[in-house]
């Protein structure tokens, strides 16, 4: 077990020390963090919950709090990153039904995607989905952000041509049917919102 003494430290130092210890810890090794104030006690627990499991959290006195954290299995973490997941955007609306509603839903979908962990490797846009990566998109900022996080953004070139959007592409690259087929063949998981 690694013991982290963060007594006398103020926010965010106890969280930084906890993070470092969990990174150094070997698999399944526990990290015990000592802090001396309630704010650090709460912040370290939040961090522990986010990156692993809290095994115990105890207030021993007004100036002494102990938290024991176990990191997540590192293998899991590795597996998650290796998953080749691609998202396919087939139209400029999400689901079948009212078009305006579908557009609002899709906009919300991309916003939500920027807020969660575990991003896809690629996002393919085809047919009217091609609108999403152009200057006519309402989700441009979110899609640009996803690209900045390493998500490959690919839009069907034929579709851009068809809708007269060729000069309006704002994010990612143009792709063709061979690349789309290849991406789909190689994917472990294909998600269609």
């Amino acid at each position, binding site marked *: 077990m690694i013991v982290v003494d963060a007594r006398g430290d*103020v*926010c*965010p130092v106890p*969280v930084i020390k906890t993070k470092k210890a969990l990174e150094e810890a070997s698999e399944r090794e526990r990290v015990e963090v000592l802090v001396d104030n309630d704010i650090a006690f709460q*912040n370290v627990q*939040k*961090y522990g919950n*986010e990156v692993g499991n809290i095994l115990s959290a105890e207030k021993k006195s007004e100036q002494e709090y102990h938290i024991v954290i176990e990191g997540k299995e590192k293998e899991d973490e590795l597996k998650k990153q290796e998953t080749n997941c691609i998202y396919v955007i087939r139209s400029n609306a999400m689901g079948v039904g009212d078009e305006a509603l579908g557009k609002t839903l899709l906009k919300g979908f991309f916003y939500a995607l920027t807020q969660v962990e575990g991003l896809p490797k690629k996002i393919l846009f085809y047919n009217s989905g091609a609108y999403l990566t152009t200057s006519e998109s309402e989700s441009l900022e979110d899609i640009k952000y996803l690209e*900045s996080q390493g998500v490959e953004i690919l839009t069907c070139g034929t579709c851009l041509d068809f809708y007269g959007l060729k000069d309006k592409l704002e994010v990612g690259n143009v792709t063709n049917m061979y690349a789309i087929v290849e991406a789909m063949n190689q994917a472990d998981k294909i998600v269609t919102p």
Partner: protein
Amino acid sequence: MSKLPKFENPDLLVGIETSDDAAIYKINDEIAMIQTLDFFTPIVDDPYMFGQIAAANSLSDVWAMGGEPKVALNIVAFPSCLDPEILGEILRGGADKVKEAGAVLVGGHTIQDDEPKYGLSVSGFVHPNKIYKNYGCQVGDVLILTKQIGSGIINTAIKADMASKEAIEETQRVMASLNMKAKRVIEKYEVHACTDITGFGLIGHCLEMAEASKVGFELNPAEIPFMREAARYSKMGLIPAGAYKNKGYSMGKVEFDKLEEHIVDLLCDPQTSGGLLFSVKQEDKDKILEELKNAELETTCKIIGEVTENRGKVITFI
């Protein structure tokens, strides 16, 4: 503070008693003068950015009271061991913002100190009948927030060296942006109340406004704009001490049990140079939103809720 002498003067329209950050003094029936002062220690490494943020924060008080800034003076503390060029950059950041605000900057005063500090003393004008108060919300009003929140949490993540480039960029851009454009749009409509969101966090300032107006607020958490990644850092416990203080103060008055904990922490997060919160008539909502859209703000401006009767808890959530 209670031992300090009290000043009474019929021309002093807003003084210390309302815990506002500014004084308003009536000059004649057409003009009242707003006087404010605010300064703080660096919150970002880039001196030019720090100057802009400190100035945007100081100027904001004037718009929050319904006025327009006219004259500003620098207030500076600076260590002699640091390169004077750094000071030059801070002052340039401040001056650029004062210029953008349409006011004039005429020097100021610098003292030597161990830690740099910067801000402005700003004088502005407002019509005595058009001063915004932080009370006066009417049931049925909509609440408009002019900037996304989360700067306290992101600044904590920056201190922890855990913030992404995008999050840092957005936070600094938002903190440095002036509340001027949004105010100049909304002032064309009937403003029932206005306040600026700073140290008490969104929830603290909402509470202050609702309680002073003797009403309740019903907020829609899905519509409250957050800075990018603020939710993620909030989950990771990168939360400044002030947020816990704000939470403690508002417990019991806010329907927190309806929300996830990291959202509660975000709502309590103290803001630096935050947005303005307006209470305006429901029927003006669409026109205001349309105009705000055309004003091309650098920040996210949203209707975050409505004014209701006080239903026991002062602030409730949809």
